[in-house]
């Protein structure tokens, strides 16, 4: 995802001389091609995210499109007030790009796990939020935000993620990764691959399960979401994020006022307050969070049994 992002950004910067990239002293082995090609529009600000976000706002308010890049919580939570006041309140054309979504930095520990970022970013005024599930969606998202003229948040995992579906036609709309009507799993981010695994397993047990990638969390295309689940007797949301403020909150909120609403089962990362996290690969940590494909299958079957 990182490589796809920087390739897409470099392409956009070739076409638009107003695109800048700032990083907070992170991006080793990723950002160098951009820095080499556009040295006067690339800046390593240093380990100083508040300054980076403010500088980005100042450059953007001078008529530029500014990407800022760092790991998970650093360009988001560390400088949250700068994003709120300096970027979003002014409608400054700043794109926050965070690498290391969810458990992507597995064994690096809790400080490097981005578990609340998408929800917190979504609460900022006027920002658009994208959580792509695969490199194809990363490419589409980078192209889209490079020309949107709006504050944006792009949540990337790390590297080596496979493409999960066919070409992206409209990133703002849910993208069907697997057709199926009885149960529809709405997934955001690369964890969608586990939804596909679970759907395959459930199909073997006679269930008709669809998987849909929801990469644009804000603005949420509510009509398209409703359409994607129109025949479902169970909606499942799956995200590498806590349930509060993420995809589950959005979808549950969307259907809360419906008299004939289908039940919504939310699968995500448990909140970790007061508990220390273990070392482990992303895969191991997701398994430990009860998000293995087998656990997803079991939890969907439980929900189906409760209907």
């Amino acid at each position, binding site marked *: 995802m990182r490589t796809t992002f920087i390739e897409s950004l470099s392409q956009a910067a070739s076409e638009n001389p107003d695109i800048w990239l700032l990083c907070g002293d992170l991006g080793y082995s990723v950002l160098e091609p951009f820095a080499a090609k556009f040295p006067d529009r690339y800046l390593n600000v*240093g380990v*100083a995210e*508040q*300054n980076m976000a403010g500088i980005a706002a*100042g450059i953007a308010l*001078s008529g530029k499109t500014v990407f800022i890049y760092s790991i998970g919580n650093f360009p988001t939570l560390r400088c949250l007030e700068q994003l709120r*006041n300096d970027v979003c309140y002014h409608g400054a054309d700043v794109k926050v790009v965070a690498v290391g979504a969810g458990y992507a930095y597995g064994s690096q520990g809790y400080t490097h796990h981005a578990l609340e970022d998408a929800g917190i970013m979504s609460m900022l005024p006027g920002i658009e939020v994208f959580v792509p599930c695969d490199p194809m969606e990363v490419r589409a998202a980078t192209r889209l935000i490079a020309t949107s003229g709006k504050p944006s948040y792009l949540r990337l995992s790390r590297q080596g993620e496979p493409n999960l579906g066919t070409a992206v036609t409209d990133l703002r709309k849910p993208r069907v990764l697997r057709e199926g009507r009885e149960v529809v799993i709405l997934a955001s981010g690369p964890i969608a691959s586990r939804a596909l695994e679970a759907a395959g397993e459930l199909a073997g047990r006679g269930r008709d399960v669809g998987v849909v990638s929801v990469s644009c969390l804000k603005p949420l295309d509510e009509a398209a979401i409703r359409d994607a689940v129109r025949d479902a007797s169970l909606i499942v949301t799956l995200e590498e994020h806590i349930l509060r403020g993420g995809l589950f909150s959005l979808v549950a909120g969307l259907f809360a006022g419906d008299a004939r609403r289908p039940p919504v089962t939310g699968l995500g990362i448990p909140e970790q307050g007061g508990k220390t996290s273990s070392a482990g690969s992303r895969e191991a940590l997701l398994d430990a969070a009860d998000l293995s494909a087998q656990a997803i299958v079991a939890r969907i079957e439980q929900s189906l049994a409760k209907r």
Partner: protein
Amino acid sequence: MTRPNLPEPKEFARRIRAHALRMVHAAKASHIGGCLSMADILAVLYTRILRVDPAEPQSPSRDRFVLSKGHATAIMYATLAECGFFSLTELDTYCRDGSIFTGHVSHAVPGVEVSTGSLGHGLPIAIGMALAARHAGAGSRVFCLLSDGECDEGSNWEGILFAPHHKLDNLCVIVDFNKIQSFGSVAEVLNLDPFAEKWKAFGWQVEEIDGHDLAALEHVLSGVPAASNRPTVVIAHTVKGKGVSFMENKLEWHYRSPSDELLAQALAEVGA
């Protein structure tokens, strides 16, 4: 630069002090002390230094002024009104229901570059503007006014470290060093001394002046960039509440608004 349609700095400062006193009194607003301490700085900036044009407030080649001590709005709005960015009568709506003239500075107001109010935000934004201006080669300069109290914020020190490293000589910071922050004196709350030496150690061109000496302000600010390849900081030693005897050096005038009687006395003292 001198704009022929504007009065001399001394007269300009007298007018904006009077407007600010009336505004704060009418709105029962706060922060008059910090408004009065920076009045002379604004007077010199807007009558003599800044290349800004009320007829074309968004001109790409304009100088930028970033008010980082965003609580000191009455004097800022009064300054912009005196410059002709909007009419003086609009100052009457200060802090009123539905007004664009909020108690912390708002970019909805013509002539205001950025909204601030949470301290420690202005300098990084000003740095971004200075970087963009240098890249554009338009010769714009960026002036950023900080309070002394807000120099407690770590984000400022990130910026103070950054600007000399990147040789931003089109950036000028002015510190309104009135020695009083919101809950006590700077020396008591979180001492900044040796203040000038800190800036020097970070690589800034440091000028230390009496922030109420109009000639000194004009001399120093018209010299920006004062050193090639280095940003400039002007540490302006000021008096909180300057010009109104009973407000000078009094913490309480960070919060209070004057009664009718005290307003009359204050206006008389500033020569209104």
